[in-house]
């Protein structure tokens, strides 16, 4: 077993060292001293198809055991590093349209449904979702995506829906998921977003 001492190192170094070690060894123990490194090394281990086990030790130290599944080749996975420090802002998903992508509206309407379904099933959900312009049509009764948005809301995702837009399309009374919001909330949320994703 190879031991990698990554204490005192900031991301992406622990992930890079752990990745190099597991590519050359069947089993690697990685020692880190912060939660961001812990989560990122664990995530990389899972992506590489390793068995991942971690233990918190005294003094803010974490030991992560990565074990390659017998005979399994290590897939190529890029080093990814996600900051999870409390200072990072929320993960925000913005839907400015009731479609995904431009070019063909029928296809775009299918893609946004597939996108929201997949987002609702994914383990890492956004903190906030913002809907404006025709995007608000996704949140009203009769929308094909309403069940997925309700699932997201039930999982704790804050759903902000542009009130001006609901009003413009005359569907304010049909809002089925989320809360009626305004430009102040929208600008404030977009401004402090740690990650911003728009389909």
């Amino acid at each position, binding site marked *: 077993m190879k031991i990698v001492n990554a204490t005192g190192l900031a991301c992406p170094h622990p992930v890079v060292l752990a990745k190099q070690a597991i590519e050359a060894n069947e089993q690697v123990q990685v020692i880190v001293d912060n939660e961001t490194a812990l989560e990122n090394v664990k995530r990389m281990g899972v992506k590489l198809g390793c068995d991942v086990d971690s233990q918190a030790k005294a003094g803010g130290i974490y030991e992560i055991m990565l074990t390659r599944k017998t005979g399994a080749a290590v897939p190529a996975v890029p080093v990814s590093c996600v900051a999870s420090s409390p200072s990072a802002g929320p993960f925000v998903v913005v839907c400015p349209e009731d479609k995904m992508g431009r070019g063909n509206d*029928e*296809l775009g309407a*299918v893609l946004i*449904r*597939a996108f929201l*379904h*997949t987002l609702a099933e994914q383990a890492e959900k956004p903190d906030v979702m913002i809907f404006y312009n025709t995007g608000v049509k996704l949140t009203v009764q009769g929308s*094909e995506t309403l*069940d997925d948005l309700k699932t997201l809301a039930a999982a704790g995702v804050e759903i902000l829906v542009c009130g001006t837009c609901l009003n413009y399309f005359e569907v304010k009374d049909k809002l089925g998921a989320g809360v009626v919001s305004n430009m102040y909330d929208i600008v404030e949320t977009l401004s402090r977003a740690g990650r911003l994703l728009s389909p």
Partner: protein
Amino acid sequence: MNGSPSHYVMLFKAVSYALKAESILKAGVLPHKLIPVPRQISSDCGICLRFEPQHRASIEALLSGKVAVEDIRPLIC
């Protein structure tokens, strides 16, 4: 977990077939959901129709002769 599927997915040769099937199922008020083809079935960026096992027979009957269905697969999760 007894291994029995919670849902089935119906696969089509093309997106347009899936959309046609969906409009027929909607008109027939048969519960279904349009979803991306699950990763374990195909890595293509495709869409399929998901439905619960109890609706399989009526869905197949309604689509029969109207839309070509590529395959129906159980979803075990």
